[in-house]
């Protein structure tokens, strides 16, 4: 069935599943099947920020004073994050928009991807400030073997879903030969690919960012690279929100609150989903090893970082119904929390210490009792 940008059939979006139902026609948000996505959109929009608002000019001086091993840690993390956000800035749109069936989720996906592009822009903002010509750093992202390994794992589930969706939309269900390879396309297969894709994205948002976050905040603890750390705090806040959305999707499926077939698939592919998560954790630990191969930095070493990955993975896995697989139950990097508290994120001076600063917000409801203290 081919995709239409405006489905002319009369459909009731309240009865549609999240994915693989009728495609969305009217973008209406007055009624929602899963209202949480509407709330996520509102929250995300209230978090709007621009990288240029953050002054990173002092970071250049700090960067020059870093040791070679510290420079390696800092730049490698930026490269890895650039990769992650390059993927996340486009893939949810390309993979999920053609198959989404409810308007609030469709708009959430667009909002989510848009914020990932802000993150990508901020890496350019940081790098342009550190190097006269940041080309070398960007170019290494597609050459560097360590980053390549991760890129494969991150993009393969997206690519698979995109390819099968394209086959389904152009040829329909059946057996199709493409470049000498046979592909079986049916709804069950498509839904399985979707399930694995969302689990892989969930693992990405849940643990993949946190090794670099920890390094950035470890620099900030020493009053170094503070402009960069301010930006990463904003990114961490957004990523947390994105993680909530994938956790919501997975849980809605698991509890049969959406497509009943997805509930079956969630049970059928439980082990595979677990493996996706465990692989991501393992890769992050290897990344920590790569970062510290030339020496560690003050306040952080490979072991602590791996413990933190385990600690955060336990938490994230419990959120989607897995048992916590690691022993690490206490937070090995307690100072991380102060950078992750949403209310402490400073967006602009007038917005300090508040979560969502709404421009021109007024209280339009005034009752007589509000004026009770007035005396004439």
């Amino acid at each position: 069935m081919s995709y239409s940008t405006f489905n002319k059939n009369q459909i009731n979006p309240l009865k549609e599943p999240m994915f693989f139902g009728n495609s969305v026609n009217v973008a209406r948000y007055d009624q929602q099947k899963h209202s949480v996505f509407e709330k996520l959109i509102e929250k995300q929009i209230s978090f709007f920020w621009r990288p240029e608002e953050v002054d990173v000019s002092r970071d250049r001086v700090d960067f020059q004073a870093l040791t070679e091993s510290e420079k390696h840690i800092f730049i490698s993390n930026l490269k890895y994050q650039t990769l992650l956000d390059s993927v996340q800035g486009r893939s949810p749109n390309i993979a999920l928009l053609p198959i989404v069936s409810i308007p609030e989720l469709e708009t959430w996906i667009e909002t989510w991807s848009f914020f990932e592009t802000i993150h990508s822009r901020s890496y350019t903002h940081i790098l342009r400030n550190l190097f006269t010509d940041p080309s070398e750093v960007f170019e290494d992202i597609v050459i560097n073997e360590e980053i390549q390994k991760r890129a494969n794992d991150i993009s393969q589930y997206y690519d698979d879903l995109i390819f099968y969706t394209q086959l389904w939309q152009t040829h329909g269900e059946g057996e199709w030969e493409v470049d000498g390879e046979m592909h079986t396309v049916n709804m069950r297969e498509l839904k399985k690919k979707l399930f694995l894709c969302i689990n892989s994205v969930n693992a990405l948002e849940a643990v993949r960012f946190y090794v670099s976050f920890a390094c950035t905040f470890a620099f900030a603890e020493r009053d170094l690279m503070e402009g960069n750390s301010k930006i990463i705090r904003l990114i961490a806040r957004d990523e947390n929100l994105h993680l909530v959305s994938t956790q919501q999707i997975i849980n809605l499926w698991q509890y049969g609150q959406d497509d009943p077939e997805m509930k079956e698939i969630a049970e059928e592919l439980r082990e595979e989903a677990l493996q996706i998560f465990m692989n991501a954790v393992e890769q992050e630990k290897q990344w920590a090893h790569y970062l510290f191969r030339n020496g560690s930095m003050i306040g952080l070493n490979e072991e602590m970082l791996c413990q933190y990955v385990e600690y955060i993975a336990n938490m994230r896995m419990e959120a989607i119904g897995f048992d916590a697989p690691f022993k690490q139950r206490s937070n090995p990097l307690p100072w991380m929390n102060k950078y992750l508290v949403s209310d402490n994120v400073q967006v602009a001076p007038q917005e300090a210490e508040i979560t969502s600063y709404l421009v021109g917000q007024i209280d339009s409801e005034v009752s007589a009792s509000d004026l009770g203290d007035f005396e004439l």
Partner: protein
Amino acid sequence: MSQVFKVKVNGQHQLTVDASQGNTLLEALEQAGLEPHYHCRNGFCGACRVQLTSGDVTYINDPLAFIRPGDCLACCCVPASDIEINQ
């Protein structure tokens, strides 16, 4: 009606929380020196998730994270009865 409830943590610590004070369960746990997990303190990251084994809680802020049956988010709720939690 009294808003003072007993909170039992991991079957051992016990504290009393006055739900009318506007302190969240997370803040109450911190004041009792229990070092609960947290990140965003705003109901969306889910880091403060604890198991609610008995009793009820009321959410004073709308949580965005999915709350699985038998769990509660300490950063945005107050006890609505005597409760028992595991963290």
